[in-house]
């Protein structure tokens, strides 16, 4: 956002204003409060008091959803930075700051979720302490990258705060150094989103062969970037319709075509790998897991089929395509980390109600914080007119 030329007033993000107390925010706040209560119980009485996790399933929905899927859903900022700053597609710049805000929340809460899941959470600093950390471990890379990326994102987003409070000196300073943070902001997610796939590689035969492959890091990275674009489409659609802003459909259509390219690459790699390693037959002979596999593939394939040609310019098709992409990417991760994961005979896991309520509360908190922040900080473009978008497209 900083390396752009100063924007015209009409093109500049601004706080939306309006009431912070609405039915949606109240419900979200209530759900967040329930999660806080359950987490208090968890930190006082231990994991066993609220979760169904056991020795065979040492992680549950808090890791699979809150961390693995949560950070993938928070790849909007990463994908947009990749597109705008690395591919130099400046016309998508208006989408960067809202995407970044959502990413900021996704990652910060994902990082916090790791704490919820750590049995001995008071030892969390060990992973950052030389001598106590194990630099050879995949988990180490994931933990360090995610922690650093959270900090980098707060710096990337800080101009929004400086705008709000009028600290121009600070803003100038941060913007002068911003290129370095943007570079890191692309590097770090590339590293740990692929490493989340490496985590499963390390699990070996405990992951069903339909999911287990040395290409897991590549598949995780491709799908994470695609989910990043999908989430930008999803959020933008919800925000513009929810806050009754001018539609950003034309920008989103461009993003959807990039997403489709990634999706096609993903499917080619996924099926190519299965074919080369002779595992295609398993897609039909694995019972329940075959069903899950084809459900995933259906979610991945739907956007490819739906968002072709003129349909890409329709808000409804964009929305359905994005949701399908998010479901596919989410299910892929849920399958890899829980459904297709079997550590030995007899072990089972299904999230308990308190576990689910924490996850739901966390999502509610993200929605709540997003609504509050776009109302008080300059994130969205409230009065953006159609000609301004046209001008931006023409300038490109």
């Amino acid at each position, binding site marked *: 956002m900083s390396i752009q030329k100063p924007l015209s007033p009409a093109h500049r993000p601004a706080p939306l204003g309006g009431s912070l107390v609405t039915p949606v925010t109240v419900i979200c706040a209530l759900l967040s409060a329930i999660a806080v209560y359950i987490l208090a119980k968890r930190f006082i009485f231990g994991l066993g008091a609220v979760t169904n996790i056991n020795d065979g399933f040492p992680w549950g929905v808090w890791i699979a959803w809150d961390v693995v899927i949560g950070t993938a859903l928070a790849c909007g900022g990463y994908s947009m930075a990749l597109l705008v700053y690395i591919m130099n597609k400046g016309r998508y710049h208006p989408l960067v700051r809202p995407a970044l805000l959502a990413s900021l929340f996704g990652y910060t809460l994902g990082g916090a979720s790791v704490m919820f899941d750590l049995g001995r959470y008071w030892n969390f600093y060990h992973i950052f302490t030389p001598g106590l950390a194990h630099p050879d471990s995949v988990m180490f890379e994931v933990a360090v990258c995610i922690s650093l990326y959270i900090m980098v994102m707060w710096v990337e987003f800080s101009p929004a705060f400086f705008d709000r409070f009028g600290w121009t000196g600070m803003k100038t300073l941060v913007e002068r150094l911003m290129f370095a943070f943007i570079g890191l902001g692309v590097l770090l997610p590339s590293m740990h989103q692929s490493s989340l796939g490496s985590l499963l590689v390390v699990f070996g035969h405990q992951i069903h062969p339909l999911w287990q492959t040395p290409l897991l890091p590549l598949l995780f990275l491709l799908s994470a970037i695609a989910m990043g674009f999908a989430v930008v489409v999803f959020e933008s659609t919800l925000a513009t319709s929810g806050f009754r802003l001018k539609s950003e*459909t034309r920008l989103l259509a461009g993003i959807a075509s990039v997403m489709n390219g990634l999706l096609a690459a993903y499917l080619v790699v996924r099926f190519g790998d299965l074919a080369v390693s002779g595992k295609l037959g398993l897609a039909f002979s694995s019972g329940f897991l075959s069903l899950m596999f084809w459900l995933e593939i259906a979610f991945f394939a739907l956007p490819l089929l739906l968002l072709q040609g003129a349909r890409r310019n329709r808000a*409804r098709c964009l929305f359905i395509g994005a949701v399908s992409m998010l479901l596919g990417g989410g299910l892929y991760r849920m399958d890899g980390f829980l459904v297709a994961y079997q550590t030995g005979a007899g072990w089972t896991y299904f999230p*308990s*109600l308190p576990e*689910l309520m924490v996850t*739901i509360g966390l999502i509610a908190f993200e929605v709540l914080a997003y609504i509050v922040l776009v109302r008080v900080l300059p994130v969205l473009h409230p009065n953006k007119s159609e000609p301004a978008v046209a001008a931006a497209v023409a300038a490109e």
Partner: protein
Amino acid sequence: MYDDSAREDDAGLDVIERKLGMSRRNFLQFCTAMAATMGLPAGAEAAIAQAVATKERPSVIWLHFQECTGCTESLLRAEHPTIEKLILEVISLDYHESLFAAAGHQAEAARHAAMAKHKGKYLLVVEGAIPTKDGGIYCKIGGKTALELLKECAADAAAVVAIGSCASWGGMPSTKPNPTGSSGVAEVLGKPVVTIPGCPPNPYNFLSTVVHFLTFAKLPEVDHLGRPKFAYGRLVHENCERRAHYDAGRFAMEFGDDGHRKGYCLYKLGCKGPETYANCPSILFGDVGSGSWPVGTGHPCIGCTEKGIGFAKGIHELADVKTVVPPVSYPRIVEEQGKGADFASTATLVGIAGAAAGAGAVIARNLGKRDDPDQADE
């Protein structure tokens, strides 16, 4: 002790082979066991061997009062060496009512003679409690009350040892309502004495104490109740072979139940091990190998060495744990392999999924309405 300079000292040990009827090797093993039982430093076994082999046998006067002779019976079962060898050859047992061949005035005369001959040097051992009520008339020997006999013999003794719980603190005869006013030796004499409590006490605790006296001319270090620390320094609980069951929360709940048969901890059956100081689990009884002590055979410790516990608390009463109180919860022995889906979480998931799908459909429909003017523009 096996270097050349010590070699000539061993000459005295040859006498032992004849005197005790045991081989030199066995005798040295006995001395080493004594030193180890008392926790003496390396080299002490050599001093003990020298002392037993060469020193003049100390005179011992052994009194019986209110008791069952269990202590003497227990002592008779000592095996290394057999106690009759020891009391006839290592010490000079000049008066002992149970073991005397003599009787009546002859026996009393022997006591008087020994007391006169070894004045200030003899060891007085007391077995049994002393009745003090009504002038001590409830126990008389040779026309004298236990009170008189004890005071008479203790006056010129080099040291007094109370063997068994009765002599140590009153023991079973002092159990309420204590009709004869039974008391321990220390209480009657009004001064601390060495006590070897237990019902019966382990014979090796007594033997070790005597041998310590013989070797170093003084009694071993004792605690505030006069008990040698080498034998009574630790709780039964601390060295109990069933301690791991206690720590893991595996208890026999009643006699003959599954846990009892599996050898679980007897704490909940009233075992007093957690509040009783004794070395029973370490040195066992009867020289027959492992398991030969009460808890080892499946009976709770009754705390026979402890005043106020043995013969005072009911066998079923819970011990007042002195060291580690049982935790509120225990590490699980059987690990659960996970629960399946329950109704609440499944219903919540389905509800959320339904709500999300509904909301998504509504949004998509509204977006469709919005699409139409967009398309009109193009």
